[in-house]
C-alpha cells in the first residue's frame, strides 16, 4: 500500500461503479483522464434534485423554483471557492471545456484583426486548436505554435521569440491529456501579460489532480469540465476576469441571457447570465457541487501523494516490459502514462487489456498535431485517479506482459 493516509477501501466504497466485473475479471478503470467516475454523493445529489427540487431556475414564482435556483446558484459559489475566483459572476456554466473555449475564441474573433497572432502549444487537445483556427479564419489572425522538447515539456523560452506586437492571445493547456505534463502556466501567463496578451488556460486535466488558484495564476480565462472532476457530463466551467467577460460578446441568444427584448433592440443580461442562454444544466450543476464538496473534503495532500505513488510505480514497472516506451517523461506530471510497445499496435493493447478487465484509452487522444510531432499514429494511455490502487497498477503490467507473450 502507499504511505499516504488515504483509506482506499473507504474511498472505493464511494464509487459503486468500480465494484463490478468486466469480461469475467474485476474492473480496473484506468481511463479517468477521459472521464472520471462519480462518487455516491453525486449520484445522490442528482436523485435528490429530481425527487425534491426539480423546477426551472430564475423564473418560477413558487417554492420549487426558489429551491432549484438557490441550489443552482450555490453550486456557482462552490466553483468560485474551488478555484478561488474573485467573484461569483466570473463563473459561467457551459456544456464543457470545449464549449467554454469556443465561447472565448468566437468572442475574441470580433476584436482580433487581420495579421494578429494567437499562440497555442504543440500539445493542445483539438478543443484548444480548432476553435482558434475557426476564429482565425473569421478575422484573418494567424496561429503560432509553442513547441515542446523530447520529454514532452513546453519550450518556455521559445515564447519570448514568438511574442511580438501582433501577439494577442496565448491559449495553452495546464496539463497535457496525452503526456501528463504539468505546464508552468504561471510563468507563461506572466510573459504573455507583459506583452498585453489575453491568456486562456485549459484546465480540464489539471483540476482533478491539484489545487488551482485563478487569482494566483492571474490568467484571463480558465476552463474545465465537470465530468473529469468526478461530476456529471454535459457541464463545464468558463472562468473569466470580470473585465474580460464584460467585453466579450454573448455567444448564443435566447432566454435568460437578456435583460430586455424588443424588435428594435435587445439589451443583454448582466454577468454571469449574459453567457447562459436557455435553461441551464441544473441537476448537473447541483450534483457537480456535490462532487467538488466530496473531492475537497478529501485530504488533498494525501491524494497527491497517492497519485504520484501510482505514477512512480507505473514508470518503474514499465522498465520491465521490453520495448515499452513511455511517451511523456516530464519532471512534473499528473498520473497519466502514455506508452507504446514495440511491435504492438495501441488498439491491440487496448482490446487485450479489456479482455482482462482493464480499461485504458488508445488512439490519437484528440491531439493529432502532437501525434504527428511524436511520429506515432496513436498511443495507449493509462490514466489514474485517487481511487486507483497500487495493486491495479501491478495488474496492468502483469496483463501487459501476458499480451506481449501472446504476440511472441
Amino acid at each position, binding site marked *: 500500500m502507499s504511505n499516504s493516509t488515504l483509506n482506499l477501501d473507504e474511498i472505493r466504497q464511494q464509487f459503486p461503479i468500480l465494484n463490478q466485473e468486466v*469480461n469475467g475479471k474485476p474492473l480496473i478503470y484506468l481511463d479517468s483522464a477521459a472521464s472520471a467516475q462519480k462518487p455516491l454523493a453525486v449520484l445522490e445529489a442528482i436523485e435528490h434534485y429530481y425527487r425534491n427540487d426539480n423546477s426551472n431556475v430564475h423564473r418560477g414564482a413558487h417554492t420549487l423554483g426558489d429551491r432549484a435556483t438557490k441550489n443552482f446558484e450555490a453550486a456557482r459559489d462552490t466553483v468560485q471557492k474551488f478555484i478561488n475566483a474573485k467573484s461569483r459572476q466570473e463563473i459561467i456554466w457551459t456544456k464543457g471545456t470545449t464549449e467554454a473555449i469556443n465561447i472565448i475564441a468566437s468572442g475574441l474573433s470580433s476584436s482580433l484583426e487581420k495579421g494578429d497572432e494567437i499562440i497555442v502549444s504543440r500539445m493542445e487537445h483539438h478543443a484548444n486548436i480548432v476553435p482558434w483556427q475557426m476564429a482565425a479564419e473569421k478575422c484573418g489572425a494567424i496561429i503560432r505554435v509553442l513547441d515542446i522538447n523530447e520529454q514532452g515539456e513546453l519550450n518556455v523560452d521559445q515564447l519570448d521569440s514568438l511574442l511580438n506586437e501582433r501577439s494577442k492571445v496565448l491559449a495553452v493547456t495546464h496539463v497535457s491529456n496525452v503526456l501528463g505534463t504539468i505546464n508552468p502556466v504561471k510563468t507563461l501567463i506572466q510573459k504573455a501579460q507583459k506583452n498585453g496578451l489575453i491568456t486562456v488556460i485549459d484546465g480540464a486535466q489539471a483540476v482533478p489532480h491539484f489545487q488551482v488558484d485563478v487569482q494566483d495564476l492571474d490568467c484571463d480565462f480558465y476552463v474545465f469540465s465537470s465530468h473529469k472532476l468526478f461530476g456529471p457530463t454535459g457541464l463545464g466551467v468558463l472562468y473569466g476576469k470580470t473585465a474580460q467577460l464584460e467585453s466579450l460578446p454573448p455567444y448564443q441568444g435566447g432566454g435568460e441571457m437578456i435583460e430586455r427584448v424588443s424588435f428594435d433592440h435587445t439589451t443583454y443580461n448582466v454577468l454571469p447570465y449574459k453567457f447562459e442562454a436557455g435553461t441551464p444544466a441544473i441537476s448537473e450543476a447541483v450534483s457537480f457541487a456535490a462532487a467538488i464538496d466530496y473531492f475537497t473534503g478529501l485530504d488533498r495532500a494525501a491524494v497527491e501523494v497517492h497519485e504520484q505513488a501510482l505514477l512512480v510505480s507505473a514508470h518503474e514497472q514499465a522498465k520491465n516490459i521490453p520495448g515499452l516506451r513511455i511517451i511523456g517523461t516530464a519532471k512534473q506530471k499528473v498520473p497519466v502514462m502514455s506508452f507504446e510497445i514495440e511491435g*504492438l*499496435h*495501441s*488498439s*491491440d493493447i*487496448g*482490446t*487485450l487489456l479489456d*479482455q*482482462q478487465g482493464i480499461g485504458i484509452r*488508445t*488512439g*490519437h487522444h484528440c491531439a493529432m498535431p502532437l501525434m504527428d510531432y511524436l511520429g506515432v*499514429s*496513436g498511443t495507449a494511455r493509462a490514466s489514474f485517479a485517487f481511487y486507483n490502487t497500487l495493486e491495479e497498477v501491478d495488474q496492468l503490467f502483469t496483463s501487459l506482459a*501476458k499480451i506481449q507473450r*501472446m*504476440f511472441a
Partner: protein
Amino acid sequence: MSEIDLATFKASPFGTEICQTDILEAFEFLDDWEERYSYIIDLGKSLPAFPESEKIEQNFIHGCQSQVWLIHKMDEADKKLYLLIESDAIIVKGLAAVVLATFNAKTPDEIKTLDVEALFEKMDLIRHISPTRGNGLRSMIERVKLIAQNN
C-alpha cells in the same frame, strides 16, 4: 477497382480454402479469451501481403483507433469479387480475415445475401463491429457491401 493484377488477389486463401465454417470449427475448440485472441492474432498474421502502393487515401477506411485499407478487383471470367484488406493493428487484421473468409471470392449477389454479423455473434466478437468501436471494422463491412452493390 485496383490496378493490381488478379493473381495477387487470387493468392488469398480466404473465402476459398478458409471459409466461415473453418473458422467457426477452429473457434469451437478454444477455451478462453487468451486462446481465442491468439487465434485471431494468428489469422491476422496470415493475411496476404497488401501492396504498399495501394495504401492511399482512396483505399483508406477511417477508424479512430486503427487504420484500415481495402482494395478490390472483379474477375470478369468468374464474375467474382476479390478483396485485399490491410490494417496496422493485428487484431483488426485478424477480424478482417473473418470478413474475408465470408466475402472474398464471391459474386456480388452472394455478398449481398451473406451475413458476417451472425458469425461475429457466434464467435462472441460482436462487440468489435458495434458502431461504438472506432476500429473501422464496421465501415470495412459496409465498404464490401457497397462494392458488391456497385458491381
